[in-house]
């Protein structure tokens, strides 16, 4: 019995069928980590990118350091650091949220670079026109810059979403019960690793395909009028 489900070992097919519900419980955690992490990455990444464009060095330097640190150190190290070291300073987060935050922040650092490229790609004339029309900074970003940038960066963000999804098994190292963690547990219990791991692989594969399809749909849905031009 794992998570209330009986394991049937009579044949490989029956075994696979019996562990599927268990893995699907893990899938829920995987999906949740992926979506929560992605929201963190998309939002914080944008905040990073905008802060790095500030005119004050007191803002750009620390943010630049944080982004480079997040980009240039291993995910696993960051994960262990937050999970094992922070409690010593009295900060205790549930494993799931620790993991999701780390995942989200690392990808936020990656995405801030995508946003930066997107912002740099906007012709200088657009900024100048906004200035000439006396639009405020906020208004310029909201109605001129971001609506032109977001459709351009969408494919790159989508890639990171998929890449991030494939990184979620890392969370199992800090005891988060996601798919790979459960597959391992099933293997430890039954000494039968082939079926659970294959199933996890298959589920990930289906998931990536579905996500890619959804993203392609989204890219078509987001208004492209005029944006590809000049």
């Amino acid at each position: 019995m794992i998570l209330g489900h009986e394991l049937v070992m009579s044949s490989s097919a029956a075994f696979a069928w019996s562990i599927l519900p268990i893995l699907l419980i893990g899938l829920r955690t995987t999906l949740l980590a992926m979506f929560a992490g992605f929201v963190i990455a998309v939002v914080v990444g944008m905040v990073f990118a905008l802060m790095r464009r500030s005119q004050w060095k007191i803002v750009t330097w620390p943010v630049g350091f944080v982004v480079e640190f997040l980009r240039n150190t291993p995910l696993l190290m960051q994960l262990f650091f937050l999970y094992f070291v922070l409690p010593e300073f009295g900060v205790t987060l549930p494993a799931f949220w620790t993991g999701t935050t780390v995942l989200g922040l690392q990808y936020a650092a990656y995405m801030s670079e995508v946003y930066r490229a997107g912002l740099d790609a906007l012709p200088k004339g657009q900024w100048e026109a906004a200035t000439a029309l006396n639009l405020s900074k906020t208004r310029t970003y909201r109605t001129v810059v971001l609506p032109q940038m977001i459709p351009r960066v969408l494919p790159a963000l989508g890639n990171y979403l998929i890449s991030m999804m494939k990184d979620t098994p890392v969370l199992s190292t800090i005891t988060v019960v996601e798919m790979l963690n459960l597959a391992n547990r099933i293997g430890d219990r039954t000494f039968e690793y082939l079926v659970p791991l294959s199933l996890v692989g298959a589920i990930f594969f289906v998931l990536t395909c579905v996500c890619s399809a959804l993203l392609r749909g989204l890219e078509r849905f987001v208004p492209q009028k005029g944006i590809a031009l000049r």
Partner: protein
Amino acid sequence: MSASIEFNQLHKRYGAHPVLRDFDLKVQAGETVTLIGPSGSGKSTVLRILMTLEPFQEGCLTLDGISYHQPHGKPPFFASDVHLHKVRAKVGMVFQSFNLFPHMTVLRNLVEAPTAVLGLSRDEAEGRAVELLHMVGLSDKAKAYPGQLSGGQQQRVAIARALAMRPQVLLFDEPTSALDPELVGEVLSVIRSLAHEHDLTMLMVTHEMRFAREISDRVCFFEGGRIVEQGKPDQIFNAPEQERTKRFLSSVLNG
């Protein structure tokens, strides 16, 4: 309403490279002044400084008596954002490359800033936008996107967009240089009607010499970051006094 402009001993550098040196220019309210001269002579920079797209380092620039620099302003602009906002409210600019917002319809291009900056209601702003589009002869293009228009049409929309902000000074930075020859006329005729019918101070950088001669109250010939010669168009084009002006005019008019 139009505004007067005064440059007084203005210095502008890019790094160590001087662009404008001891620059003086007075423009009266309602005057139409054309800036001509070889490229790199600082003509466009004059417009860009007026539009606050570029800072300047020394000297004085006033618009209707209001100085661009503030006494304790910090570089690069030596003025607060609020102050720059106030100065910019009087100035509009038409760019060589139009710079319309490609993701907005023509109508939204014209409505965006008046609602956001002047605080007009949507209906009010759209009403004015429709009038302006009529004026530039593009009433039927309100729902089109800039990418669906020809260069000449885009530039006329850009002029309407600048006018929608009710500027007192309108700057034209080579408004026809990016256009195919057959589209230049439609843009020039819009500018011509502005010069005649609107109470605007206009500064224009252009290579259209015949047009400059026709609409200008005054023509300024630039070289090396200074005005070498200025005067009524007839005087500049028929009887230039400076050797450099003669050389430039003969090269552009005969070349």
